[in-house]
């Protein structure tokens, strides 16, 4: 167990290191952020002074080693655009994305699992076929377009829900959250639903396949033979058994929802980190982009690590000592 943990940690450090070089060089290759950030009225002398001020006149390897030295001291750099520590800006906006992601995954579970079970129980009925057809739409329609359609329907035509932004927030355990206010809830519903559509379709398919398989198992027949009610058979025996793949997949999907909710956040002007990333790439705000991706990679490494540990706990046949991960 210890050897496994140490090996994984070392691998993670190498991944982070390689990642930082790739991103750093990638953004360097695109161009000089001063070209975009500076006022066009600035003359040549001022342009050069600005490049010097931001340390962009130095060779790329010098810039990278400065960055690396700072990272080792816990400083991920200061945003070129906002003049505040990059990590601080990301952490400020992280709660917005987190609650959107949790809301989306929550909706995916609440709607997806019952719908999947129904589709699995009555695969040939109109409802069952309807749910499956709906899930195909959920997979294939572009998030961007669906988001705009949701806004058109619920905000513009019906006027039920606000079209954009985050609404009122309140402090909760030291962070600003919006799901505790009514106004905030009305704001989060549409983007969360938009983001949930794809996951929902995924859950429906997993739940349906699981249900169809489980319904044929001997223990279901036995349960029925014992005279258990339909509600108990489905609500307990079927549900428990189909949850294993659903939980595994959703755990990993949560990571991607947090890191890459870019499209939904842009359409709904949701002030999360996905929108921050897109804006920062557009401005070539290198410290922010690098800090963001380093943070994302760290997050995925941790999730994978936890999943590996969980496997070993759930299934004694998996021995961590033997894993070559």
């Amino acid at each position, binding site marked *: 167990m210890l050897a496994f943990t140490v090996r994984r940690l070392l691998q993670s450090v190498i991944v982070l290191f390689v990642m930082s070089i790739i991103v750093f060089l990638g953004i360097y290759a695109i161009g000089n952020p001063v070209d975009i950030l500076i006022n066009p009225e600035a003359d040549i002398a001022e342009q050069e002074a600005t490049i010097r001020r931001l340390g962009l006149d130095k060779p790329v390897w010098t810039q990278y080693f400065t960055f690396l030295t700072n990272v080792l001291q816990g400083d991920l750099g200061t945003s070129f655009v906002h003049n505040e520590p990059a990590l601080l800006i990301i952490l400020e906006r992280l709660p917005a994305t987190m609650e959107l992601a949790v809301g989306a995954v929550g909706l995916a579970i609440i709607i997806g699992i019952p719908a999947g079970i129904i589709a699995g129980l009555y695969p040939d009925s109109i409802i069952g076929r309807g749910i499956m057809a709906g899930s195909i739409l959920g997979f294939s329609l572009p998030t961007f377009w669906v988001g705009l359609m949701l806004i058109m329907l619920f905000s513009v035509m019906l006027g039920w829900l606000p079209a954009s932004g985050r609404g009122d927030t309140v402090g909760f355990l030291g962070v600003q959250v919006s799901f505790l206010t009514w106004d905030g809830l009305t704001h989060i519903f549409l983007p969360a639903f938009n983001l949930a559509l794809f996951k929902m379709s995924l859950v429906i398919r997993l739940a349906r396949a699981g249900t169809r398989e489980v319904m044929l198992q001997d223990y279901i027949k036995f349960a029925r033979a014992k005279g258990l009610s339909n509600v108990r058979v489905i609500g307990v025996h079927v549900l428990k058994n189909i949850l294993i793949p659903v939980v595994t997949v959703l755990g990993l999907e949560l990571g991607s929802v947090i890191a890459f909710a870019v499209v939904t956040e842009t359409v709904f002007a949701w002030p999360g980190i996905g*929108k921050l990333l897109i804006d920062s790439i557009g401005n070539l705000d290198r410290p922010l982009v690098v800090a963001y991706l380093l943070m994302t990679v760290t997050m995925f490494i941790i999730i994978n690590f936890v999943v590996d540990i969980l496997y070993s706990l759930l299934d004694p046949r998996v021995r961590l000592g033997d894993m070559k991960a």
Partner: protein
Amino acid sequence: MKIRLISFAAAFAMTTLAPVMASAADLTVGLASEPSSIDPHYHNLGPNNEMRRHIFESLIWQDEQQKLTPLLATSWEPTSETTWEFKLRKGVKFHDGSDFTARDFVYTACRIPTVPNSPSSFTIYTSAMKKIETPDPHTLIIHTEKPYPLLPVELAVWGIISATANGVTGDITFNPDGTGCGITSFPQTKEFNSGQATIGTGMFKYGEYVKGDRYVMNRNDAYWGEGTEWDTVTFKPITNSAARVAALLAGDVDFISKPPTQDLERLESEPDITLSSMGSNRVIYLHMDQYGPSTPGVKGTGAPDGTYEGEGPCATSACEKNPLLDRRVRQALSKAINRDAIVDKVMGGYAVAAGELLPQGFFGTNEGAKPEAYDPEGAKKLLVEAGYPNGFELVLGTPNDRYINDAKIAQAIAQMFTRVGIKTSVNAMTKSVFFATRNKYEFSLYLAGWGSGTGEMSSPMRALVGTRDKSRGLGGTNRGRYSNPVIDDMIMEALSTVDDDKRATLLAESSRMAMEDYAILPLHFEVTIWAHRSDLSYGARADQYTMAIGINSKK
């Protein structure tokens, strides 16, 4: 059963989640681009400067047509070639209750060069000042090294912060070396973002700033002037244009900037929505590579006459002969462009064909300067005269997310050029890549835009037409590298002529010469559009700024 419960709950939730109606004196504005900071001296760029004007006032105001009018200064005049006297308004108070005096101006001028990490510093507007005298609290005498006619307009660009509110008492002596005049600690950018240091004299006060989400301002009831009718104004950045229009249609916001051209018809058909528009001073132009004997984006012109020296891709790789050095070719390009068609078809009528780099009526323009007439036959004749009867191949570079319909304009122009025999392809790219590529001189021909911050001809002439020269401060954005010493000298002379009439004549003459030489091809001026509730009106501005200061309710 479970399903039914859930759908019932959802339906119930939706019917009761009606958006909260804002009260009459609140205003919400959807912005196309967000300021990078609330610090008034950190980032000299449009989105920051338009927000700054609400809270921090400058000595002088630029009205809708960028004419200078009194703000914190009630009057100003040059007292000699190199000195200016400003009389300051009395009875003005900062948001914290302290008085505004000449000291605050000096304090601000001292802070500007010291702002750390500024990606676009305001020092370009303070570097002309060499000495500032304050004979009494409401008089400023500013000395410049050379005659400097742009001083008043430059003082309209930066806002004044309070010395007292930031803990500085006693006299401050201005020192032009940019080290802060002996003041050891200025407020930091983050203190402005948090509101702690956001203390100005403006008609709005800082309310709340949540990066990426909203910037809330409250009315300053102690404002010295007429003030605003709005209790609270909320600015929301909604960068996606379709989402911005939807937010207006849904009633989430009352006012938006830059609705996309394709949605204008739809918005006009809505009874509750009105468009406000104003011809802007932003010119969309084509820059042509006029530097060396060869150029990277041209094919079919044969071997160059000489060797290429200096910066650019042709210094290291083989390029063909540069046809754009020939004035006849440049003229042919201009004649081949049907500017009226671009205005009508691509811009939906929301543009004005351009014959100069600033619209008619602005300072230093030639009265009656007309856009080049569309003349494809004339263009073909000129190409034959120049020795290109079969034309050549050309690549037109353009950004696709910077100016209104930029890539579409480029597509239209490429077709027009192809029609006269210059086979043109478009290379469109996102703005960050475009500007980087352009600055490496990889385009023979590119489309870009220029908005004049000062509203006078010296701005585009100095930056776009003057020969690139660090010591003279010319040609900062002249990536076509046109060079004409006669025009350079005229620009330099204009920049040190305090007499307005003389300067206007010099600028107009230099502009006429540049147009005659086809140094740069102006296409059109953007017309800026704002969409808002019909019961609002907007004092639409030539500088494209979106400000709550000009938004009023119709009574």
